C-alpha cells in the first residue's frame, strides 16, 4: 500500500513539468491557432538556461531560485521575440506553413543548443532548502518532488485566476472561443497574440527549469517533451488548461505505475488509454469540437486535374535523365540519387494522405519505418531473400497503417495530426526498447540486397523502376473512383455523406494506401543503407516528409517531387559541409515560408499560370 502511494506521488511530481509545457501549448493554440512545435524547444532552452544561470557558467551565479525564474523569464522574452519577428508575418499564411515555420525554429534551436552547450548531458544542482528526502510511510521521498507536486495545482490556480479575474484573461478566453468576433469587438489582436505567446513560452521555460534538479539536461529533450505534450493535449482537449492538467496527471501516473507493473508495455498502456479516450470523446476529455487545419486559407481552389502534357513531359524527361545517370555518375552520386528517389516516393505517399485525402500526418515516419523494419526483420529472423523481405516490409507498413488509421479517421484536423505523431512515437519506442527482436538502438545490420541487385547501378535502376511505378499507380488511384471518393471526403464531409459515401471507411483505406507506399520507400531505404535503426521511425523523418510536401505545394501533384529533390539535396550537401546543417536548414525553411507561403511549385506555378493567361488574353 505504502509503495502504491509513493509511486502515485512520484507520478504527480513528474506530471508538473508536463503540465506546464502542455498548458502553454494549449493556450497558444487556443488563441493563435498555431500548433507550436517549437514549444519543446522553449522547454529545452528553459532547462539549459536555468543550468547556466544557476551555476553561473557565464557571469555571476544567480543561485537556484532566482536562476530558475530568470531562465523562465528569458525564455518568455525569446518567445515574445519569435512571435513579433516571425509568426506575425505569417498569420495570414495557411496553418500548415505556420507549423512549418515552428519546425524551422526547432531545427535552429537544436543546433544552437549543441553549439552553446555541447552534446554532453548537464547535471543541475540540488534545490537549496529542498535537498534530501523526507520519510513517508517508511519510504524515502525527495523533498524537491513535494515542491513539484504542489507546483502543478499552484500554476493551475494562478492560470484560473488570470483567466477569470483579469481583463486580459477575459480577452484571451474571448479570442479562444471566437477570434473573429473578438477582433470585431475591438480587441487588439497583435498585443493579445504576443502576450499569449510570452505566457506560453514562460510556462514551457519554467517547466524546463524546474526539472533541473530531477533529470539531466540533454539536447533531445525538446522532441521528447513535445510528443508527450501532444499526447496530453489530445487527451485533455485542445485549448483546455484544466484538460491539460488532468491529462498530464493521467499520463504521468500511467508511466509511474506502468514502469513498475509492466515495464515493457508502458507505452502500449499510454496508447491504449489515449485510444479509449479518443474513441469515446474524440475532442479529448474537456475539449470542444475540433479545429480543422486548413491547407489553404480563403483561396479559391482550382480543381485537381490530370497533369498537362507539358508537366507529363517534364516528369518523363526526368525519368529519362535519371536512366542515363549511371553513365556519368560515380557510386557516391548514384547512392545520393537513389536516396533522393526514395524520399520522392515517401513525399508522394504523404501528399496522397494530406493533399488528396485531407488527413494531415505528423507521423508518416511510422509507415516508412515499419516498411524498413518489416524488411529487415524478415531478413534477420527468417533469413528470407530480398524479394520476400521487401514484400514483408510493405505488408507491415500497410498493417500498421490499418491499425493507426482505424483510430485516426475517428478524428479530424489537428487532433488527427497529433494522434499520428503519437503513434509514430510509439512505433519508435517499440523499436528502441524491444532489444530481443529489433536490436534496440544497435539496429539491425546486414540488410543487403540480393546478389543480383547488389551493385549500386542495379539498385539505382531498381529504385528508379519501383519509384516510377509507384508514382504511376498513385496517380492512377487519385483519378480513379477511389481517389475521387477521398477528395470528396476532404472537400466536404457533409456532401460526401449526403451522397452515400462512408467517410471513415474511405479515409481508412486511403490511410492504408498511403502507408503501404511509404512502406515501399522504407523497405528500399533499408536495402540502400544495409541496416535499420530506430531513427527511421523518429520525428525528424516525419518532419522531413512534411517539409518536402509543403515546400512543393500541397495541391500540386508534382510538388512533392520538387520538394523532396530540393530539400534532400540541400540536406545532403549541407551535411557534407557543416555539422550544423540543421541550423542552416531551419533558417532556409523559415525564409521559404516567409517568402513563398504557397510552396515553391505553388509559387512558380501560380506565376506561370498568370503569365499564360496574360499571354492568351493579349492580342
Amino acid at each position, binding site marked *: 500500500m505504502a509503495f502504491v502511494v509513493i509511486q502515485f506521488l512520484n507520478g504527480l511530481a513528474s506530471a508538473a513539468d508536463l503540465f506546464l509545457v502542455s498548458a502553454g501549448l494549449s493556450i497558444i493554440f487556443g488563441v493563435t491557432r498555431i500548433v507550436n512545435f517549437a514549444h519543446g524547444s522553449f522547454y529545452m532552452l528553459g532547462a539549459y538556461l536555468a543550468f547556466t544561470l544557476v551555476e553561473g557558467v557565464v557571469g555571476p551565479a544567480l543561485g537556484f531560485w532566482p536562476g530558475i525564474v530568470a531562465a523562465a523569464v528569458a525564455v518568455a522574452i525569446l518567445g515574445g521575440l519569435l512571435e513579433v519577428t516571425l509568426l506575425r508575418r505569417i498569420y495570414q499564411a495557411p496553418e500548415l506553413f505556420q507549423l512549418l515555420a515552428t519546425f524551422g525554429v526547432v531545427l535552429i534551436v537544436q543546433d544552437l543548443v549543441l553549439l552553446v552547450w555541447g552534446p554532453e548531458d548537464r547535471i543541475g544542482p540540488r534545490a537549496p532548502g529542498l535537498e534530501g528526502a523526507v520519510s513517508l510511510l517508511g519510504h524515502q521521498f525527495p523533498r524537491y518532488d513535494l515542491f513539484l507536486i504542489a507546483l502543478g495545482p499552484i500554476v493551475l490556480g494562478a492560470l484560473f485566476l488570470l483567466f477569470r479575474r483579469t481583463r486580459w484573461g477575459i480577452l484571451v478566453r474571448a479570442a479562444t472561443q471566437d477570434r473573429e468576433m473578438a477582433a470585431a469587438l475591438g480587441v487588439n489582436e497583435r498585443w493579445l497574440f504576443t502576450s499569449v505567446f510570452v505566457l506560453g513560452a514562460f510556462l514551457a521555460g519554467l517547466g524546463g527549469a524546474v526539472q533541473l534538479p530531477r533529470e539531466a539536461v540533454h539536447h533531445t529533450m525538446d522532441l521528447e517533451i513535445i510528443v508527450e505534450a501532444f499526447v496530453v493535449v489530445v487527451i485533455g482537449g485542445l485549448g483546455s488548461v484544466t484538460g491539460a492538467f488532468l491529462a498530464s496527471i493521467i499520463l504521468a501516473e500511467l508511466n509511474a505505475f506502468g514502469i513498475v507493473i509492466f515495464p515493457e508495455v508502458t507505452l502500449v498502456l499510454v496508447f491504449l488509454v489515449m485510444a479509449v479516450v479518443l474513441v469515446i470523446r474524440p475532442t479529448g476529455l474537456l475539449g470542444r469540437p475540433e479545429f480543422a487545419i486548413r491547407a489553404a486559407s480563403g483561396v479559391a481552389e482550382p480543381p485537381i486535374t490530370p497533369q498537362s502534357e507539358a508537366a507529363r513531359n517534364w516528369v518523363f524527361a526526368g525519368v529519362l535523365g535519371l536512366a542515363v545517370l549511371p553513365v556519368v555518375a560515380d557510386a557516391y552520386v548514384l547512392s545520393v540519387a537513389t536516396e533522393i528517389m526514395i524520399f520522392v516516393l515517401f513525399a508522394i505517399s504523404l501528399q496522397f494522405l494530406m493533399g488528396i485525402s485531407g488527413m494531415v500526418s505528423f507521423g508518416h515516419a511510422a509507415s516508412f519505418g515499419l516498411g524498413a523494419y518489416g524488411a529487415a526483420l524478415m531478413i534477420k529472423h527468417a533469413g528470407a531473400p530480398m524479394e520476400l523481405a521487401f514484400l514483408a516490409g510493405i505488408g507491415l507498413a500497410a498493417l500498421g497503417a490499418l491499425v493507426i488509421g482505424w483510430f485516426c479517421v475517428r478524428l479530424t484536423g489537428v487532433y488527427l495530426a497529433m494522434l499520428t505523431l503519437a503513434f509514430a512515437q510509439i512505433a519508435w519506442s517499440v523499436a528502441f526498447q524491444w532489444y530481443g527482436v529489433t536490436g534496440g538502438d544497435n539496429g539491425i545490420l546486414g540488410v543487403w540486397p540480393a546478389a543480383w541487385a547488389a551493385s549500386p547501378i542495379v539498385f539505382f535502376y531498381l529504385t528508379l523502376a519501383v519509384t516510377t511505378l509507384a508514382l504511376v499507380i498513385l496517380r492512377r488511384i487519385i*483519378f480513379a473512383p477511389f481517389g475521387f471518393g477521398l477528395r470528396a471526403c476532404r*472537400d466536404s464531409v457533409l456532401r460526401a*455523406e*449526403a*451522397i452515400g459515401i462512408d467517410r471513415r471507411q474511405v479515409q481508412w483505406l486511403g490511410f492504408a494506401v498511403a502507408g503501404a507506399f511509404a512502406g515501399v520507400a522504407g523497405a528500399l531505404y533499408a536495402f540502400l543503407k544495409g541496416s535499420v535503426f530506430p531513427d527511421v521511425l523518429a520525428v525528424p523523418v516525419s518532419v522531413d516528409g512534411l517539409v518536402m510536401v509543403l515546400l512543393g505545394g500541397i495541391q500540386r501533384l508534382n510538388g512533392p517531387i520538387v520538394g523532396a529533390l530540393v530539400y534532400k539535396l540541400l540536406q545532403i550537401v549541407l551535411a557534407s559541409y557543416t555539422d550544423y546543417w540543421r541550423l542552416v536548414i531551419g533558417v532556409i525553411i523559415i525564409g521559404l515560408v516567409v517568402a513563398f507561403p504557397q510552396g515553391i511549385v505553388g509559387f512558380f506555378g501560380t506565376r506561370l499560370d498568370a503569365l499564360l493567361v496574360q499571354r492568351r488574353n493579349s492580342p
Partner: protein
Amino acid sequence: MTPVLSVEGLSKRFGGVTAVDDVSFSVAAGELLAMIGPNGAGKSTCFNLVGGQLKPDRGRVRLFDHDLVGLPPRRIWRFGVGRTFQITAVFQSMTVVENVQMALISGRRRIGALWPKASHLYVDEALELLSRVGMLDQADRACSVLAYGDLKRLELAVALANAPKLLLMDEPTAGMAPAERIELMQLTSSIVRERGISVLFTEHDMDVVFAHANRIIVLNRGRLVAAGVPAAVRADPSVQEIYLGSAGTPAPSGSPA
C-alpha cells in the same frame, strides 16, 4: 396510399431547449410540402433529423416502409432521399460534371475502384442531369468560379443523381436574387413533377412558398401549429399571429431569434 415520408412525434432537445417538439406530418407521392416558420422555429433541426445529420430523442421517421431513425445520412440516401443544403456543399477539387459523376459513382457502388478513370465514368448521364438543370455549358468549369445560383443548380443535379423518391431542400433559394429564386423553384417543380419525386422544403420567401407548395406546414418554437393547403394556411389566424403579431398587441417578446 402510403405516404412517401411519414414523421410521427418527432422530438429533439439541445440542453434545456426543445428545438423540435412532438412534430408529425407526412409527404404524399409527388407532393411539394413547404415547411415554414420564423427563425428558430426548428425547421433546420427538423430537416437534419429527417436527413440523418441529427438523431431524434423520440419519434419515428419512415420512408415508405423503411425506418430511418438512427441511420446515418449515407444509408438514408441509399433509400432514395436526395439532399440540398442551406449553404451549398460541393466538391471544390472537382469540376462541375465531376461532382455529378461522383454522386453517380457512389450510387453504383463503384467507389472502391482503384483503376478506371473516374472522369470517363457515367459521362452521358452526368451531362444529361446537368443539361436538365441548365448547367451543360458549365460542365467543365471549376466550382470555385460558379455563381451562387449555379451552385444551387449543381446541388440539385447532384441530388437527382440517385433517382431519389424524396428531395430534402433546406432553403433552396436562400441568398439568391428574387428573379433567380422564381426561376430555380420553377425548374425544381417541373423536374420533380416529370419524375414523380416528392419534395420537402423550407423557405423564407413566401412568394416562392405560395407559388409552388401543394401543402404547407407551419412550425413555431418547435411545435407544429398549422398544416394545410396554401389558402387555408394563409387564412389561419394563428399563422398570421406568428408572422404579423395579433392585432393591437405587440409581437410576443422573447421569441427565439
